[in-house]
């Protein structure tokens, strides 16, 4: 495709058209690095002990969502990223409308604000497990760890995507791939020694227990295990040959995510009975029980460091991705005030990161020091995942529209049966959103309607009112004249 094929008004394709370079040198990224970043954003060993409790049924609990959610998300975003730069904002802007493009990337961005404190609180408790478990109950310790790690992450992200890509990839390798392989090998050794699997591995245990709504909540909520697969598409213009390389990177990430989720959970369920997993104080004691069987308990702190590295690597990808998408559309359309559109010397959206950091720090401090906030924090994960699902609904709709309205637009990859994939993904996302209104275990005693009101109110505020306030208050002067052509850090295509 030549430069002549480049659509106007932000509809930039990902061909090798003459690039409009920014002052900043464009960092290159291999498709392998992007695959590792994507995997790092979505998968880690953190969930392995939780899912090992379900034994063989954990395969079902990961495979069904993989068919109805992972496959549509990965294939659809592979097609979209092989045709358009900029990630979800541009796909939705091109397929539906620019305000909806802003809404999509806002939803992707806003939900991370509440994610970081809980992720870093988990990191703090993992560190505490090996140093002194009593620290996990210290508000001061938790606040210091969250704040220091978060702002270090912001600082690293502000140095450019190159640093984020390297650290996230290595975090995945040393914190997930190596320990995950170790878990699986040890599990196979356990079985090879003639030991029976602790969890029954027969056909009748392939399905989770069916108890109506509770089982449905478990299965449907597991769709969200794969959320984030599309997020790193915002870096697509950093690839040498995006139309060919992005789909390759997405397929590799899809395979890795499945392996990381399923195999280590199975391995743990072979060695540690569910009753022992259930009695463990969190993820680390489950790993401890696993290693104790092989008399290698000293590996517990090693895996703790690995989990910390993987979590921080994943956090970096989330810091760098959605905020970049938000910046791109805001510069083109003037959706955010100029202060938030400013770039640093590395071409990074520093002021968005810092503003987000101030809000996140405030939330984290409340989490650490106010028991009523920490106790109710789980509700934010319900609200934010609901907000995130808005983005998926918009993405699947946009993909159908783009295939119909721009069939001739060059794409490096055509997803097979795209409409079926989009309808499946849309219905899965809608089902997950509906299930999000069913009270979980933590909401005991309250009325269903108050739960619906809290979740619905949060969804309305974070997912609709705030982004529409930005849209309403925007000024024409906030547009950056050169923003349509220049893509920070990446080569504009």
């Amino acid at each position, binding site marked *: 495709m030549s430069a002549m094929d480049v659509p106007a008004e932000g509809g930039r394709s990902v061909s090798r058209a003459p690039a409009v370079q920014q002052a*900043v*040198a464009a960092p290159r990224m291999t498709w392998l690095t992007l695959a590792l970043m994507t995997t790092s954003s*979505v998968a880690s060993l953190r*969930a392995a002990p*939780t899912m090992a409790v379900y*034994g063989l*049924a954990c395969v079902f609990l*990961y495979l069904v969502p993989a068919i109805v959610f992972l496959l549509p998300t990965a294939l659809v975003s592979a097609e979209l990223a092989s045709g358009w730069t900029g990630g979800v904002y541009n796909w939705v802007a091109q397929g539906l409308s620019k305000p909806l493009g802003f809404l999509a990337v806002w939803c992707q961005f806003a939900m991370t604000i509440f994610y970081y404190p*809980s992720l870093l609180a*988990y990191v703090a408790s993992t560190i505490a497990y*090996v140093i002194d*478990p*009593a620290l*996990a*109950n210290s508000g001061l310790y*938790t606040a210091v760890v969250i704040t220091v790690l978060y702002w270090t992450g912001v600082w690293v992200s502000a140095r450019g995507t*190159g*640093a984020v890509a390297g650290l996230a990839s*290595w975090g995945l390798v040393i914190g997930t791939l190596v320990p995950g392989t170790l878990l699986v090998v040890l599990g196979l050794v356990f079985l090879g020694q003639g030991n029976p699997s602790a969890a029954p591995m027969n056909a*009748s245990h392939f399905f*989770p*227990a069916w*108890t109506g709504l*509770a*089982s449905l*909540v*478990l299965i449907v*909520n*597991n769709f*969200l295990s*794969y*959320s984030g697969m599309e997020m790193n598409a915002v870096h697509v213009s950093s690839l040498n040959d995006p139309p060919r390389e992005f789909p390759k990177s997405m397929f590799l990430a899809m395979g890795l995510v499945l392996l990381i*989720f399923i195999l280590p959970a199975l391995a743990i369920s072979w060695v540690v009975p*569910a*009753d*022992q*997993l*259930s*009695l463990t104080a*969190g*993820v680390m*004691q489950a790993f401890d029980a696993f290693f*104790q*069987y092989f008399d290698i*308990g*000293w590996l*517990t*702190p090693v895996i703790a460091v690995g989990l910390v590295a993987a979590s921080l690597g994943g956090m970096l990808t*989330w810091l760098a991705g959605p905020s970049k998408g938000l910046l791109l559309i805001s510069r083109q359309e003037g959706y955010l005030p100029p202060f938030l559109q400013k770039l640093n010397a590395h071409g990074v959206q520093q002021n968005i990161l810092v503003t987000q950091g101030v809000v996140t720090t405030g939330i984290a401090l409340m989490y650490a020091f106010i*028991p009523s906030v*920490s*106790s109710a*924090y*789980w509700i934010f994960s319900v609200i934010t*995942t609901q907000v995130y699902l808005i983005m998926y609904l918009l993405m699947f709709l946009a993909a159908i529209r783009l295939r119909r309205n721009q069939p001739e637009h060059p794409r490096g990859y055509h997803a097979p049966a795209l409409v079926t994939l989009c309808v499946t993904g849309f219905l899965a996302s809608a089902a997950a959103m509906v299930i*999000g209104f069913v009270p*979980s*275990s*933590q909401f005991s*005693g309250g009325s269903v309607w108050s739960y619906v009101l809290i979740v619905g109110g949060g969804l309305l505020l974070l997912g609709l009112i705030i982004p529409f306030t930005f849209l309403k208050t925007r000024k024409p002067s906030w547009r950056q004249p050169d923003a349509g052509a220049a893509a920070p850090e990446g080569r504009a295509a």
Partner: protein
Amino acid sequence: MSPTRMASEHRWIYIGAIVLLVAMLVVGLLTYTQQHATNESYRKAQQLSDELVAAGYRAVPDQDQIAKTLGTGGGAVCENPAGALQNALWKVNLANGAAGPGQRPVVADARTVEAEAIVLNVYCPDKLEDFRHKLDDLDTAKTVNT
């Protein structure tokens, strides 16, 4: 910023990350206290097994594994299980299989959470009452196929 300067800065970021992780590893290996399998820990492990069987749990864990994981004092499981921050993490972890921002609460399996109360009863009975309050605030169901 020139590519050379950027590469140099990135190199220092990588070196800093490696130093930090190695330091954490060394501190972790030096400070991590493994539970020791003593006569007392085996006695407690046996008591726990008996109580799990009495409560109807079929797959009772290996004695050796329990003794080395929980020792005599229960390890981390007895570390203020009803504390605000522990409680918060515990609630967040009663979730689906997501490891990223897709993590979301589910309806937890009843026996999964009740087993912890049996452990507390054996290893730190003084912490049981507060934990029981926590369990009472939880709606559960049977979702694990045993």
